[in-house]
């Protein structure tokens, strides 16, 4: 199958392309890229004549007025399979990804059973190959059962396809175990993704700590529960020279610590999620469990710091922390509802707002959502280079839409953005040789 995408605005930071051009896809791979940047400057693909292509076997897509990006990579999702298929499956989660412009997602290990051994990794890889609409790269658990006590078989899981390790949702409280994880993973050159939360400080908390938590009568989680662990993990990264990636940064203090650590040359990377730069703790007012997330939504100061951190490169990546839950689980006492936001289908539009606010260029946006995640994970994705997998999205920055949680492809309808009108939508996602018109 050949697909020709014509006359779109190609943004591919991996090759320094930011101009109008065409892309030819053949058998699921990028065959040719022609843009005003490439040499020689682009002659048009001529009808039926170029490279032996004939009209009959060529699907032509006119991308005039639209952007063409490498498919986005979400390095932090929860696909819930195996074990919690009522919340999400690999099939529905990857469909949500494709709808959101993602062609690769990395799924966290807090399934049932936990992805802490090669057979669970193998199951996820096999299921994703059979049913996944996009590429799925599993993240293995750092410790057995995510209990924070003994290292899981990291090397064996890498052989089955794990690309990173994290006890996401269950921070590794024991500093010695975290040290060993950072040391041991160096052997395989894979990142350790840290969910930074001091459980003794956050215990019982369900939202950000402050005046609002007092007036709502909800137990607060202080920002320091995160920053203390960010500092610990930076120190351990410095000690071990391990590859530390800090998950879902939510506080100003964390941004400052990461910036400082990077200045000092420590080998760390960091991500944040759209909800941490789009909405504040005010979203939980009226006890809205769809805004209950961990780490919790913070304040305007934190949002400003996170935006600044994205803008100056302190924060490398935007991930979703897509955490789908069943509606019945969220429709209950605030204290007892699970943490999490279903994020895949709103992430790109929410992130585009950063471009509109002049905090990021379109190129930087693609870096945060495709190029940098690929770099951090050490995978050959996030690029439109010839011979790369044809993971491509066509993006209409002007298309407005209303977020309707009920219509999400994800089984998780838990979003605080329900009813929002957002701008910027992927109109086509090409992945694993298939074209999804959205």
């Amino acid at each position, binding site marked *: 199958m050949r697909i020709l995408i014509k006359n779109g605005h190609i943004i591919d930071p991996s090759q320094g392309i930011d101009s109008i051009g065409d892309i030819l896809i053949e058998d699921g791979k990028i065959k040719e890229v022609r843009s005003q940047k490439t040499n020689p400057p682009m002659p048009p693909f001529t009808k039926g004549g170029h490279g032996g292509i004939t009209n009959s076997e060529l699907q032509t897509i006119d991308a005039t007025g639209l952007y063409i990006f490498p498919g986005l990579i979400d390095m932090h999702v929860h696909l819930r399979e195996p074990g919690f298929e009522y919340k999400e499956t690999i099939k529905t989660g990857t469909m949500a990804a494709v709808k959101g412009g993602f062609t690769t997602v990395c799924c966290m290990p807090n399934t049932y059973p936990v992805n802490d051994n090669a057979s669970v990794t193998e199951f996820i890889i096999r299921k994703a190959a059979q049913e996944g609409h996009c590429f799925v790269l599993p993240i293995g658990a750092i410790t057995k059962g995510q209990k924070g006590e003994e290292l899981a078989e990291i090397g064996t899981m890498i052989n089955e396809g794990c690309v990173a390790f994290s006890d996401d949702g269950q921070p590794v409280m024991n500093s010695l175990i975290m040290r060993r994880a950072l040391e041991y993973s160096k052997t395989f050159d894979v990142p350790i993704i840290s969910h930074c939360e001091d459980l003794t400080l956050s215990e019982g908390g369900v939202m950000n700590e402050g005046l609002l938590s007092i007036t*709502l009568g909800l137990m607060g989680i202080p920002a320091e529960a995160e920053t203390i662990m960010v500092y610990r993990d930076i120190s351990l990264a410095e000690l071990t020279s391990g590859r530390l990636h800090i998950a879902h940064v939510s506080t100003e203090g964390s941004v400052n610590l990461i910036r400082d650590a990077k200045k000092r040359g420590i080998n760390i990377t960091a991500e944040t999620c759209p909800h941490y730069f789009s909405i504040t703790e005010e979203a939980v007012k009226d006890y809205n469990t769809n805004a209950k997330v961990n780490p919790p939504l913070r304040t305007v100061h934190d949002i400003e710091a996170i935006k600044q951190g994205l803008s100056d490169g302190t924060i490398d990546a935007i991930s979703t922390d897509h955490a789908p839950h069943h509606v019945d689980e969220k429709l209950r006492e605030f204290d007892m509802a699970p943490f999490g936001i279903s994020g895949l289908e709103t992430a790109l539009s929410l992130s585009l707002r950063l471009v509109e606010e002049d905090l990021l260029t379109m190129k930087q946006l693609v870096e945060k959502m495709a190029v940098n995640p690929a770099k951090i994970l050490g995978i050959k994705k996030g690029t439109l280079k010839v011979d790369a997998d044809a993971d491509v999205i066509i993006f209409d920055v002007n298309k407005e839409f209303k977020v309707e949680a009920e219509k999400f492809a994800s089984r998780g309808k838990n979003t605080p953005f329900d009813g929002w009108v957002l701008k910027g939508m992927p109109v086509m996602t090409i992945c694993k040789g298939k074209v999804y018109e959205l």
Partner: protein
Amino acid sequence: MLNRKDLLGIKELSVAEINLILDTAAAFKDVLGRDIKKVPTLRGKTAVNLFFEPSTRTRTSFELAAKRLSTDVINFSVPTSSVVKGETLIDTALTVQALGADFIIIRHSSSGVPHLLAKKLRASVINAGDGTNEHPTQALLDAFTIREKKEKIEGLTIAIVGDIAHSRVAKSNIYCLTRLDARVRLIGPSTLIPDEIKGMGIDVFHNMEDGLKNVDVLMMLRIQMERQGKGFFPSTEEYSKNWGLTLERLSLAKDDAIVMHPGPMNRGIEISSEIADGPKSVILEQVTNGIAVRMAVMYLLAGVKK
């Protein structure tokens, strides 16, 4: 009549609404003083006490208030309900509504539960205490008692002493009393009075002697024993030494000061027996007034239905 279906908190009430409730309660208090303490006002209505937390005084007070209004009352408490069989909160509430409840009076250990139910139910939801959020009828009966004793609330200096951070009574009282233009002081150890609370328009004192000077009203809160051992204070003895109300400390307040307590009291810990049983104590009057205030709330909420 109150132009709302539910009473979820004082936070949502206007000054006019608070005054309306207090004025209406005054009329009902007259009823309670009569030989026949019952009016037919809400005959045929049904109230359900849906209590997910143990309570004797609040539940009994609501029960009596309903009965005085000729409303049928059912008590639905957790240990005997299907909640223990795994039923969800909303299913339990919908079941109670389907049984014909006009009022669902709810107490729950999680903040926001009355708000969630109010959205799901046609019945009037009355918050009888949710988590550490609010206990609106307690604040209303406290305001009623103060108004009765002091003839006004505006301009009074009122000290609330104790575990403010975890107290729904304190929270509702802060909203109510500041809205009625009293000056509110909070007194207690800094672990129990977070700094951010100053944003509620109150003054904070950590020293009991400083805080009690020239106050008109003292509200003592029950110190919850389970806070000990969680690092909020080292021991009840130390708490009592620093923030327990003694006659000596009480003498720092105005001569005509009154002492309140929402109950149940820990005698000898947050309040000495001489004070609890002494002439400045209005603690038992608070209990009596609670019935009148709860009658007023039910009566005023019933008005908007249909």
